[in-house]
């Protein structure tokens, strides 16, 4: 008999079908927050601090209040909310300094862009004019922007704390001292992983509509369910009276995994004025106040025997957390600690993290969130170690790979990797990539370099027992949910608690459902991002929406299928165990002409004249799923660069990647995730940098200054896959949304260093822009 949870025969899973989402998007008919307006709607514009650190002496709002069309101006002291903005991570036993962070600063500003007042009025342009009429007197305070200076002493971002240290947190396993004692060679590097922006092309937007005791909020968010919860808590509204809607969301990359002050404040304003209120950030506001990512200085040490066996890996991470702690701010570096072994069998691994305040925008999750930083340290250090040992880089990697037969593999720190075959991924990469041939094709006058990255990551966030309050300390579970409704006509609506914003889950989930119900994905609609529909959910981030979200969908669908089989068995007078999905029907095995299609089953369920004894009518099921473990995607990437030593310019001329996220549900969508992920990391490695000057002024506050890669800056990619199923879920799947970003910065950095070894360069930190490269070459030559 086929039990609930057994995989069905795949017809749709594995197919590279076109996306169900696309028609509305390619015709310009989608609805993002800024496309939604409500009758009676007012507009908000913020007055933001031009100072990085200052006391607010006075705020004069009189001129702004009398500006035509202005309805109200509020400052920090006008807002009578009791709780500061939320931070949801407090690991047991770890002391975390968490000064109050308000939606409008009350007495002090701590970074450029910190909001001081909000102007509310009838017209989108006029509120901006009026905001310019607000006069704020600041008393500047000393500024600290360098994370190591901030750690060493004052000035203090929050004077009352008497320190800039946020917290200290360590995770280790094995005997780290013995590991280094056994090492013949120890390589140490100071690895800087600079600050970047998520830079979703859709700016953040919020529309708050409070009426008659209930709040509806449209927000460009990845986490509508968290948003509902925190709006309820912050405003003191009972949770069932809050509806949060993430409509079409134009990219997130972690930057919309947040509870922002603007969301809370606009809800408060809408309640206060009894009018809907909308705000959409300008790009400059976004660069100033949409949370940043990365920004770590790490002192990394790796020890190995002369024959290349890694004996110990230690990193001390100094994490620049910015001026306040937002939703997950102090967690982010820790996510890297869980995979600080990388793909290697290392007997002793230790990560020590210190979080530090500076007068900058807070950092939080940006694509990969802690794991790109970890992979970068590991993979760059492995290359450095190979050079020190005089050993081939890939030979060193192979020598230390966790053995394919060692899975599930418990690492030194006790994390259990679900499945993996790292040599197979590297072998497959080398089927596509001939390093010696690539070197021979170098153009004259350029330095050609080749770099590799063999990576794993931890994703599919869940499981609650590991991440929750008594484990890692997140103040939430991390399960996911799905509800599957078969309509009378046999059409299917799926409600998922995830909140996709470009990943294509409407298509992926429809494929999962279609195989299990014998229907066509075209007739499966996936609804997401609205707390007013479907079950509780937790949103889209951490490459969780397939491994946790689609698995919930599979589970709910199997419950529907099980009920359908009982109905069909009853109606056709067959044994339940003989009924299965066969060629688009629930049919009797061995006599496939005896069967009912989904519409016929639904008809029997909704016009319940002949159901099995005691069966409820209807055909709709709910499932909640909390995995037993994380999932660990992996792969091997190769990057070829040409460096112009005269200008310092780096061209990525070839990029080959083999990734393993388990059995592919939709190969087209997986490739798309990898492409985007790689370019996100190439952007960081080569072009992008959030740069504050020493006065705390944000130098890169527009897309004219913050260099996102364009189509002309990157090559096309050569991709392949291996498919190693995860034992964690019935689909066998791992995540893929962050994989490319986690892998790629090390590959390109290693390629650039490889290119420059002939001129004496042995190491360089990102960003690998022309100036940095040129200076590094000059230093090496002198």
């Amino acid at each position: 008999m086929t039990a609930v949870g057994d995989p069905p025969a795949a017809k749709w899973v594995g197919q590279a079908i076109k996306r169900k989402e696309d028609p509305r998007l390619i015709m310009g008919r989608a609805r993002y927050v800024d496309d939604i307006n409500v009758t009676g709607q007012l507009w908000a514009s913020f007055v933001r601090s031009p100072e990085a650190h200052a006391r607010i002496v006075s705020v004069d709002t009189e001129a702004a209040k009398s500006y035509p069309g202005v309805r109200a101006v509020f400052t920090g002291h006008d807002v009578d909310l009791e709780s500061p903005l939320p931070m949801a991570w407090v690991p047991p036993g770890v002391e975390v300094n968490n000064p109050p962070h308000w939606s409008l600063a009350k007495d002090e500003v701590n970074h450029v862009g910190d909001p001081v007042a909000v102007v509310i009025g009838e017209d989108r342009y006029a509120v901006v004019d009026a905001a310019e009429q607000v006069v704020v007197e600041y008393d500047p305070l000393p500024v600290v922007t360098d994370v190591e200076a901030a750690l060493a002493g004052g000035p203090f971002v929050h004077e009352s704390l008497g320190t800039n240290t946020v917290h200290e947190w360590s995770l280790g396993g094995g005997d780290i001292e013995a590991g280094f004692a056994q090492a013949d060679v120890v390589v140490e590097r100071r690895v800087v992983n600079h600050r970047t922006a998520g830079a979703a092309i859709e700016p953040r937007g919020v529309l708050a509509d409070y009426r008659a005791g209930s709040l509806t909020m449209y927000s460009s968010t990845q986490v509508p369910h968290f948003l509902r919860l925190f709006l309820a808590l912050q405003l003191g509204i009972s949770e069932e009276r809050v509806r949060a809607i993430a409509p079409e969301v134009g990219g997130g990359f972690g930057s919309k995994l947040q509870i922002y002050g603007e969301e809370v404040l606009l809800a408060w304003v809408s309640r206060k004025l009894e009018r809907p209120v909308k705000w959409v950030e300008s790009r400059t506001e976004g660069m100033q106040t949409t949370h940043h990512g990365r920004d770590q200085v790490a002192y990394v040490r790796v020890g190995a025997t002369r024959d290349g066996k890694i004996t110990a890996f230690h990193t001390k991470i100094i994490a620049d957390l910015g001026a306040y702690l937002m939703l997950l701010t102090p967690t982010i570096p820790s996510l890297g600690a869980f995979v600080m072994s990388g793909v290697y069998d290392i007997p002793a691994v230790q990560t020590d993290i210190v979080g530090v305040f500076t007068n900058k925008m807070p950092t939080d999750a940006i694509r990969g969130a802690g794991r790109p930083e970890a992979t970068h340290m590991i993979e760059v250090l492995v290359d450095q170690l190979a050079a020190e040992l005089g050993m081939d880089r890939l030979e060193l990697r192979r020598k230390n790979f966790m053995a394919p037969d060692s899975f599930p593999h418990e690492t030194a720190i006790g994390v259990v990797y679900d499945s993996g075959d790292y040599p197979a991924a590297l072998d497959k990469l080398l089927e596509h990539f001939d390093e010696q041939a690539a070197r021979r094709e170098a153009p004259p006058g350029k330095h050609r370099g080749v770099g590799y990255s063999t990576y794993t990551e931890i994703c599919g966030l869940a499981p609650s027992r590991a991440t929750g309050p008594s484990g890692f300390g997140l103040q939430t579970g991390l399960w996911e949910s799905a509800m599957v409704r078969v309509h009378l006509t046999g059409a299917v609506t799926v409600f998922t608690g995830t909140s996709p914003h470009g990943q294509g889950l409407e298509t992926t989930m429809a494929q999962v459902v279609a195989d299990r119900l014998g229907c066509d994905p075209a007739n499966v609609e996936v609804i997401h991002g609205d707390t007013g529909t479907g079950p509780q959910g937790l949103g889209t981030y951490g490459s969780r929406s397939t491994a946790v979200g689609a698995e919930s969908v599979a589970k709910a669908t199997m419950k529907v299928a099980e009920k359908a089989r009982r109905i069909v068995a009853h109606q056709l007078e067959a044994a339940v165990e003989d009924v299965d999905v066969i060629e688009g029907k629930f049919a009797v095995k061995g006599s496939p002409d005896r069967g009912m299609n989904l519409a016929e089953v639904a008809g029997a369920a909704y016009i319940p004249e002949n159901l099995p004894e005691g069966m409820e009518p209807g055909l709709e099921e709910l499932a909640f799923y909390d995995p037993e473990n994380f999932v660990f995607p992996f792969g091997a990437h190769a990057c070829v660069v040409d460096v112009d030593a005269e200008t310092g310019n780096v061209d990525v001329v070839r990029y080959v990647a083999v990734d393993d996220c388990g059995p592919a549900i939709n190969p087209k969508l997986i490739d798309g995730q990898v492409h985007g992920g790689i370019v996100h990391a190439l952007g960081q490695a080569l072009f992008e940098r959030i740069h504050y000057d020493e006065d705390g002024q944000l130098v890169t506050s527009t897309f004219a200054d913050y260099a996102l890669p364009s189509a002309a800056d990157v090559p096309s990619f050569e991709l392949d896959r291996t498919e190693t199923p995860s034992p964690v879920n019935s689909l066998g799947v791992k995540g893929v949304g962050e994989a490319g970003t986690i892998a790629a910065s090390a590959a390109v950095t290693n390629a650039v260093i490889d290119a420059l070894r002939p001129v004496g360069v042995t190491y360089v930190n990102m960003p690998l822009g022309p100036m940095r490269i040129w200076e590094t070459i000059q230093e090496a030559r002198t």
Partner: protein
Amino acid sequence: MADSVRVTVTVNGAQESAEVEPRLLLVHFLRETLGLTGTHVGCDTSNCGACTVHFNGEAVKSCTLLAVQADGAEIKTIEGMGQEGALHPLQEAFWEHHGLQCGYCTPGMIMAAADLLQRNSSPDEHEVREALAGNLCRCTGYHNIVKAVLAAAQAPHSDSAAPPAPSEEGRKAGMAVADQGLGA
């Protein structure tokens, strides 16, 4: 705030007329005055290209133009490119080749690509990448966008007829406001 000015523009073949503030950006005129929200705003500095539309047959960034500069002009937006069941070849190709993820940059990307294909009906990969350098996408890594544009170049073109130039009065009104700068 200056007095409002009447602007008459042909958008996707239909004549539209409205009184607008002289400083109103063309993109806001399209989105908020006319309700054509397929054209997006991503950066305010003309870097991202999400606001790209066709102005008298050529791609422009509509966050860089004032509505009054479009007086008398012929504008085409993503809504004018194709409909359900009758998609533009570029729309078909973006769908077929997964040239979009979140979709926010997509309308501008399609309008910029259409502009390229009007000028160069069989571009190579390098030419496509250079032509799209003013349109930023954070999701796709461009790989499939480039693939889609190259594929669309092979498909039959449905709208190569050039729209008419702006009227002389419209052009003068626009230039007069542009000469005053943006401080109006």
